[in-house]
C-alpha cells in the first residue's frame, strides 16, 4: 500500500446506474435497454490507486466515463471531494474537470493527428486559464520530461512517435492541469509487453510522486495486482467483489473472481489442470440473467441464485463479495 493513503474518501459513488437505449426501426424508437452500469457503489480514498477489472462489456469504460460525467448518469450519486457531481451545472462541471482527468486506451485515436505535441499539451492549460501564453510551452516541456520524453518532442506530431511514446503524451496531457484524480482506461492494453512495463513503471512513479488518486481500468489481472492498492471486479454491469489487492488475489471469494484468476495463463511451463473452466459466453447485457448476473456460467449456481440480486457482503477487512453461496 502507498503510504499516502488516508481513510478520507475523495470519491464516493452511490447506486450509480447508466443505461443506453438501443434504437431501431423506422422511427428510431428505443427497442431495448442495455444496463451498462447497474447499481454500483464504491469509494476511493485520497491517494489510493484502485483497479477496475472485468471482461469485455462488463461496464468498466461506462463506469469510468460516467464518473467524470462524460456520460450522463441514469441515476445515482457521485460525490467528488464532497461535491455531488450529478447536480453540478455545466460551468461548475467544467471547473471540476480540472481536477479530474482521463487517459484512454488507444494512444493512436486519442491524440489529434494534426496538432503538434506543443498544442496538445498547452490546450488544456489554456482551457483552464493556467499560466500565460509565454510560459505554457515551458510547462509543456516540463510535463514531457516528467513522462520521459525530451523537449524536442514539442514540435513533433503524434504519428512521429511509437505507441508507448504516444501513451506517454496522453499521460502528460492528463497531468497538465495538475488533477487530483485520474481515470486510466486500459492505458497499457494496446502496448507490447516491454513497453507496457515501462508505462506501468511511469504511472507508478507518478502516483507516488504526485500523490494522485486513480481508477485504473484493465482486463489484465496481473497488471492490476502489481499496480493497485485495491480492486473492484465487475461482471455484466455489477460489482461482484472488491477488496485490497493482497486479500482479493490471495483469497478470491466470488466464484467469478476465482474463475477469472484461474484463467490467467501463468508464465510457467506445463498444462494447467487446476483451472476452473466456465461454460458458455458472457450473456447479452440487454437480457441479463435474473438474480445473480453470473449464475448462467457459475459452477455453483442453484435455483435460489435466480431469485435475488446478491448484495455485497463482508468477507474480510475491506473485502466484500456478492454471492449467496460463498459469503
Amino acid at each position, binding site marked *: 500500500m502507498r503510504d499516502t493513503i488516508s481513510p478520507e474518501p475523495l470519491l464516493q459513488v452511490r447506486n450509480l446506474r447508466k443505461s443506453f437505449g438501443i434504437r431501431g426501426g423506422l422511427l428510431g424508437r428505443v427497442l431495448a435497454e442495455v444496463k451498462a452500469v447497474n447499481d454500483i457503489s464504491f469509494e476511493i480514498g485520497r491517494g489510493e490507486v484502485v483497479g477496475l477489472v472485468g*471482461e*469485455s462489456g462488463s461496464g468498466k469504460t461506462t463506469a469510468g466515463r460516467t464518473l467524470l460525467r462524460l456520460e450522463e448518469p441514469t441515476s445515482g450519486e457521485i460525490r467528488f471531494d464532497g461535491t455531488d457531481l450529478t447536480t453540478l451545472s455545466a460551468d461548475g462541471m467544467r471547473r471540476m474537470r480540472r481536477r479530474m482527468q482521463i487517459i484512454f486506451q488507444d494512444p493512436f485515436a486519442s491524440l489529434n493527428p494534426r496538432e503538434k505535441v506543443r498544442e496538445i499539451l498547452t490546450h488544456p492549460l489554456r482551457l483552464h486559464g493556467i499560466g500565460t501564453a509565454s510560459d505554457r510551452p515551458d510547462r509543456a516541456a516540463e510535463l514531457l520530461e516528467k513522462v520521459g520524453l525530451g523537449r524536442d518532442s514539442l514540435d513533433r506530431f503524434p504519428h512521429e512517435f*511509437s505507441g*508507448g*511514446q504516444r501513451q506517454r503524451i496522453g499521460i502528460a496531457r492528463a497531468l497538465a492541469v495538475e488533477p487530483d484524480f485520474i481515470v486510466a482506461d486500459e492505458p497499457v492494453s494496446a502496448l*507490447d*509487453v*516491454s*513497453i*507496457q*512495463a*515501462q508505462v*506501468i*513503471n511511469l504511472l*507508478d512513479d507518478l502516483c507516488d510522486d504526485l500523490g494522485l488518486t486513480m481508477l485504473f481500468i484493465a*482486463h*489484465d*489481472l*496481473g*497488471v492490476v*495486482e*502489481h*499496480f493497485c492498492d485495491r480492486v473492484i471486479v465487475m461482471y455484466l454491469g455489477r460489482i461482484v467483489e472488491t477488496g485490497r*489487492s*493482497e486479500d482479493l*488475489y*490471495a483469497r478470491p471469494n466470488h466464484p467469478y473472481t476465482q*474463475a*477469472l*484468476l*484461474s*484463467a*490467467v*495463463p*501463468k*508464465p*510457467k*511451463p*506445463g*498444462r*494447467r489442470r487446476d*483451472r476452473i*473452466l*466456465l461454460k*458458455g*459466453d*458472457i450473456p447479452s447485457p440487454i437480457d441479463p440473467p435474473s438474480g445473480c448476473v453470473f449464475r448462467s*456460467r457459475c459452477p455453483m449456481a442453484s435455483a435460489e441464485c435466480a431469485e435475488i440480486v446478491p448484495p455485497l457482503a463482508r468477507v474480510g477487512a475491506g473485502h466484500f463479495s456478492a454471492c449467496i453461496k460463498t459469503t
Partner: protein
Amino acid sequence: MTMMQELPQGETAPASRHPLLVVRDLQTSFRTGGGGSVRAVDGVSFDLGPGETLAIVGESGSGKSVTSLSLMGLLPRESGRVTGGSMRLEGRELRDLPEAAMRDIRGQQIGMIFQEPMTSLNPVHTVGKQISEMVIRHRGLSKRAAMDRAVEMLDLVGIPEPRRRARNYPHQLSGGMRQRAMIAMALSCEPRILIADEPTTALDVTIQAQMLELMQDLQDRMGMAIVFITHDLGVVAEVADRVVVMYAGQVVESGTVHQIFEAPRMPYTGGLMNSIPRLDGAHRGQRLKAIRGTVPPLTELPAGCRFNPRCDHATDICRAAPPVLEEAGPGHLVRCARWRDITLDLMGTE
C-alpha cells in the same frame, strides 16, 4: 498424440528425427514505396515434429505473421515475396509451389486459424455450408456426407445443438461460438498441421481458457501439430513443447519450453519474462524490470546485434558484428555473442 503423452512435456523426442515441417533460413521481403524493400523475416529456421506444439513468440512487428503467411503461400502478391530459404512439408518444398497446389495443401495438410474469426468465415454462407464445401473440395465427399461431417466437427468443438447451428450464418453466433466454428472448419479435413496466429488474443481470459483447453483436447484426439503464434508468454508456457523467440525478423532464441522459461540465455528473452507482471503477490509494489527503448523499425536496424541498443549486457563486440545462432544446450539455440559470459537476472517464477 499418444506417443507424446508418455514423455514429459518439453522433453519430446527431438523433432528433427522425423520432422513434419522443416523451415530453413526463410527470408521474406516486402517492397516499399520508392523502390526500396524491407526484409521482414530474415533467416528463420525451425522444425516441427508430428503432434508437437511450437510457439512463435515476439513483440509486434517481429515477423511472426509474415513467417506464417510465407508458409501458407498467402503473402500479398503485389508486395511480398519469399526471397530465400526453404520450407519442406514432409520433404516437399513449398516455396514457389503453384497456387493451385498450395491451395490443396492449405486445408488438407495445413489448417489455419486467426485472431479474427471473420477473416476465415464468409458472412454470406451458413457455417455448415462453409465447412461442408471445404470437405467436398479436399475430401471428395458427397454433399450429404460432407454436411454430416460439418455437424460432427461443430459438435467436436463443443457447439451445442450442432445440427441447428450448422444452419446459422456467422453473425448469428456469439463471439466464442464463431471462434469454435473457425476451429471446426480449420480441422474439418484433419490437417497434419494447424497454424494458429494469435487465436486467443482478442478474447477475454475466461473464453481464452476455454479455447486453449479445446485446442489441446483436439490435439490429443486428432494428433495434429500446432504452430501457435502469440505475443503472450503465459499462453506459450501453457501450450508449447518448443518455443521460437523472434526479434526484428530473426530467431533470437529457441528451445524447449523448459529451456526458454527456466534458463533463457538471450537477454531479450529474459527481459520479456521480467516485463510480465506476475500473479503471485511476491513482487507487488516493486518496479517491473522493463526493457528500455523500443523495437527498431526494419529500416533503421542497428549495426551488430539488433537488440544491442536495448541490452544491459551489450559491449563493443555486440556492436561490431551480428551474432549468429549458437547452441547453448541440446536443441537450445541462442543469438547472443556474450551468452557464455553473462548471467541473466530473472525475477523468480514461483
